[in-house]
């Protein structure tokens, strides 16, 4: 086999410039796809992480119908009593769930005694919330990064507009489910950076304070944010939870719960999908480049070596072996292109990371580009290039193997 590879390599080196050009084209294609995938992948991962780790969690569980009305923050669709207990039991028993956090969401009036405006609030258990969405505390740009009862984290834009500072006293007034109004003073514990995405401009208070403002007679929660141990297991865990929770029915026999992954809750999922589609088309372009360039080289190689093919066929080389010889040449070109492309791509990615390139995302500025490439992606890309190289060589190789030795030997 090593002899065959040696012959294939020598045949490729027979036309050095052409081989170099083709290998460079494949290398460039691989580099382009690799760098594009890693940079957009980094952006996508950052975007998903920002959404899931600072606001949404990996998935959320609500009472059935809540998400359809989520813009109204309907208190009558909160989970209550036995349903919460059953949900807690199921979540605690699921080994792939790293943390979960109950929330009470409601709309309220925010008053500084001088001015009043509307605010959307999340009542949270700070300890649980910071486990379920660990980047939440990073969004507190001023004040305390822990939220004690009586404190409120005010969104940055609202604080600026209402001229509110850390330590100020504000009043939150809310209407509860029965229509009665209640108010309470809070001390501004922190100013929160606004984030792009759903819930990115909400304020936060302690869950016990939320229950008190809303005068909840029994325990109630609007949603549960769930964080998984392994984000890549999202689809599987979500499906399992849906199956488990589907068994929980109300008195009318209808399901109590609904499960939504972040993809169904955030508009950024569409951007993530667009990135995936663009990556897919980049790979298609690479396939086209490899296919056309290798096929061109191999067609030329067969045409230029017709007499040689006639000679080796005449001395008894089997058609299958002639086919293998030419396939091996295409394969060698593909392997060289894939290896050089991966090496160059990895080097460029390392240089990009070393350059500390920053970019802005929504209101977040100065995010550092951390391009990363999964070795599995490199292997997959190499496999695509190599397989396409062989496929592109098939037709010329087949033609060579089927050549009539007499006609080939007469070829001038």
């Amino acid at each position, binding site marked *: 086999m090593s002899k065959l590879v040696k012959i294939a390599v020598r045949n490729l080196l027979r036309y050095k410039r052409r081989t170099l050009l083709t290998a460079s084209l494949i290398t460039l294609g691989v580099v382009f796809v690799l760098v594009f995938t890693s940079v957009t992948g980094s952006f996508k991962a950052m975007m998903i992480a920002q959404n899931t780790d600072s606001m949404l969690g990996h998935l959320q569980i609500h009472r059935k119908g809540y998400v359809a009305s989520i813009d109204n923050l309907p208190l009558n669709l909160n989970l209550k009593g036995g349903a919460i207990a059953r949900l807690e039991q199921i979540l605690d028993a699921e080994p792939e769930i790293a943390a979960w956090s109950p929330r009470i969401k409601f709309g309220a009036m925010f008053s500084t005694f001088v001015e009043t405006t509307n605010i959307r609030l999340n009542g949270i258990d700070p300890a649980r919330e910071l486990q379920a969405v660990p980047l939440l505390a990073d969004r507190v740009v001023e004040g305390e990064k822990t939220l004690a009862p009586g404190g409120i984290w005010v969104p940055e834009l609202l604080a600026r507009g209402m001229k509110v500072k850390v330590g100020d006293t504000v009043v939150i007034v809310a209407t509860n489910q029965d229509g009665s109004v209640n108010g309470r003073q809070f001390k501004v514990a922190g100013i929160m950076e606004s984030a792009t995405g759903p819930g990115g401009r909400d304020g936060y208070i302690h869950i016990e304070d939320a229950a008190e403002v809303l005068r909840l007679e029994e325990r109630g929660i609007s949603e549960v944010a769930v964080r998984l141990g392994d984000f890549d297991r999202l689809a599987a865990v979500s499906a399992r939870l849906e199956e488990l929770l589907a068994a929980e029915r109300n008195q009318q026999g209808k399901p109590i719960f609904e499960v939504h992954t972040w993809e169904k809750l955030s508009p950024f999922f569409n951007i993530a999908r667009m990135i995936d589609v663009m990556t897919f088309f980049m790979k298609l372009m690479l396939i086209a480049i490899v296919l056309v360039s290798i096929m061109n080289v191999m067609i030329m190689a067969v045409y230029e070596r017709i007499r040689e093919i006639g000679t080796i066929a005449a001395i*008894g*080389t*089997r058609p299958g072996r002639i086919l293998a010889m030419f396939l091996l040449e295409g394969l060698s070109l593909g392997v060289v292109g894939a290896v050089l492309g991966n090496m160059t791509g990895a080097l460029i990615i390392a240089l990009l990371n070393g350059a500390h390139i920053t970019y802005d995302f929504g209101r977040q500025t100065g995010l550092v580009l951390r391009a990363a490439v999964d070795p599995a992606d490199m292997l997959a890309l190499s496999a695509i290039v190599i397989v396409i190289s062989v496929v592109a060589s098939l037709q010329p190789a087949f033609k060579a193997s089927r050549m009539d030795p007499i006609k080939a030997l007469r070829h001038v």
Partner: protein
Amino acid sequence: MGLITAENVHKRYRVGETVIHALRGVSLTIEGGAFVSIVGPSGSGKTTLLNLIGCLDRPSEGKLTVAGTDVGGLGRRQGADFRGKNIGFIFQDFNLIPVLTVYENIEYPLLMVQDVPAPERSERVTTLLREVGMEEQRNKLPDQISGGQKQRVAVARALVTSPALVLADEPTANLDHDTAYQVIELMKRMRDTFGTTFIFSTHDPKIVGEAEVVHTLEDGRLTDSRDTREAGHEQVG
């Protein structure tokens, strides 16, 4: 029974609308170990006859037996296997593989056709390199050696698989007279050493004189067959 027996062999080609009758009922027998020349003017059917004997083509009519096998019925793959096992080829233009060294060109049929293990390949190639006097050029590429040396390498390549038969179509056409004579002498010596049957076609009357058996073709017919080792010769047809 000879190594090669042709019985009323015809070969017709179609070129566009025209049918060309290249061989018209050739019958001959060639014994094993013979040193045979096929002669005749251009278009007389020499190359066609060599192609048929070499299993590169099949007769349109008649029966052709080579080394006990009716080669008319061989398919593409069987033909390749038969050639690889029984027949060596020497070409007018040498047809060495330009990216392979002298050694590797000779080794090629053992590697690609017969799958001979490396130690045996080495032994056989080295022996032939010595026999054809190309030991010192073993690592040179074909474009680094002369025409005569290329044909010596081609002779070695044809013999390396120990075939029963070597076919050479105009092997001296591209060589000067002295070199041509040396190549024919080499072929004869190889026949004497290995007992291989050599059949070559040629135009050159001086080269023809080196053959032990001469078959003459004219217009696709065998017009004369003579054994130069005998005082007289057998007239055909």
